[in-house]
């Protein structure tokens, strides 16, 4: 991870360091530099899915086939996956690595985003899915690295909520 400076460089390097080769995403403006960098790096197999629960299905199959995968989505996309979590990923004990770009807080301008954001942590907590809201660059690598190792070792999914404090978020321009 030497030379990694930005949040997206740290995430990319940590995925590589943990042998996570598959990245399936539903696009997000804030995640764009990460997605671009992953596409540009031949280490990864990366593509968009039409919907977030589909992405979870794909990484579930990949894990069972011996390939580690991560999914990237926005807060609103998280709102579409509770069934896939509750009826596939959690009961089957799949270490899905879920990265959420947090919308709906710290300057949100869209009420719809703000409301769905409030459902995210209660859903994760009610399913006992390990989740970390990451706000600091100096903690990012440690949290992601250790949590991926824990997910694999304990056969359980983990969610990384990347706060606007970390990523800068999406800013309303009046």
């Amino acid at each position, binding site marked *: 991870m030497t030379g990694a400076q930005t949040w997206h460089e740290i995430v990319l390097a940590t995925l590589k360091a943990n042998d996570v080769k598959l990245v399936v995403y539903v696009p997000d403006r804030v995640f764009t530099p990460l997605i671009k960098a992953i596409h540009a790096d031949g280490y990864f*197999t990366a593509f968009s899915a039409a919907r977030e629960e*589909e992405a979870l299905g*794909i990484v579930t*199959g990949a894990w*069972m086939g*011996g*390939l580690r995968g991560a999914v990237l989505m926005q807060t609103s996309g998280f709102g579409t996956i509770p069934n896939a979590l509750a009826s596939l990923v959690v009961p089957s004990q*799949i270490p899905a690595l879920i990265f959420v770009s947090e919308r709906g807080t710290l300057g949100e301008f869209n009420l719809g985003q703000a409301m769905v954001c409030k459902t995210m942590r209660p859903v994760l907590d009610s399913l006992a899915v390990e989740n970390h809201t990451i706000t600091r660059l100096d903690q990012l690598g440690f949290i992601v690295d250790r949590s991926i190792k824990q997910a694999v070792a304990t056969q359980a999914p983990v969610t990384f909520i990347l706060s606007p404090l970390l990523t800068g978020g999406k800013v309303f321009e009046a």
Partner: protein
Amino acid sequence: MAVGAHNAKVMNRFELTKRLVGQLKHDEAVVGGIGNANFDLWASGNRPQNFYMLGSMGLAIPIALGVAIAQPKRHVVALEGDGSLLMQLGCLATVGMLKQKNLTMLVWDNGIYQITGGQPTASASAADLVAIGRGSGIANAAWAADEDDFDRLVAVALKDGGPSLIVARIDDKPGVGTTDRDPVRIRANFMAGLGVKR
């Protein structure tokens, strides 16, 4: 009835499932969708390379796609019902985009949500799942005209020239068996069947 299916014979899911399994000679993986697709797969005889989906309706094809990406030397078959596929049509676009060669999608189209009381699906009157597949970029998409045609389509699909979508019109007979309902055991058996150590 979907326009493209007008010449397709109405067949039986369990009979076709047995015909599929009979053609699997190379430890192909099979991902069974929730409900009757799963039940008939289970009843056709347990194989270590079978995965039975207990929830997550609509995700049989995405799961199979993930397995196919992880194990490109193994052919992977997804079994899905019409109602389930209609719930997750976007996955066909993803499959069409990726063009994963070792993936076959078998869809059982009886035009009803059979397990929930037989309510009609959109494919009963309007939606043509083969046309939707072709429109999603899956060139190898076809209705199975009859049992022999089904066998032929499966044989071609299993040669890794995919992705392939085969849709069969089926009757409303219920599934023959009932799967085990232990998701961890199902997942662990499947991984062992695929030679994957965690």
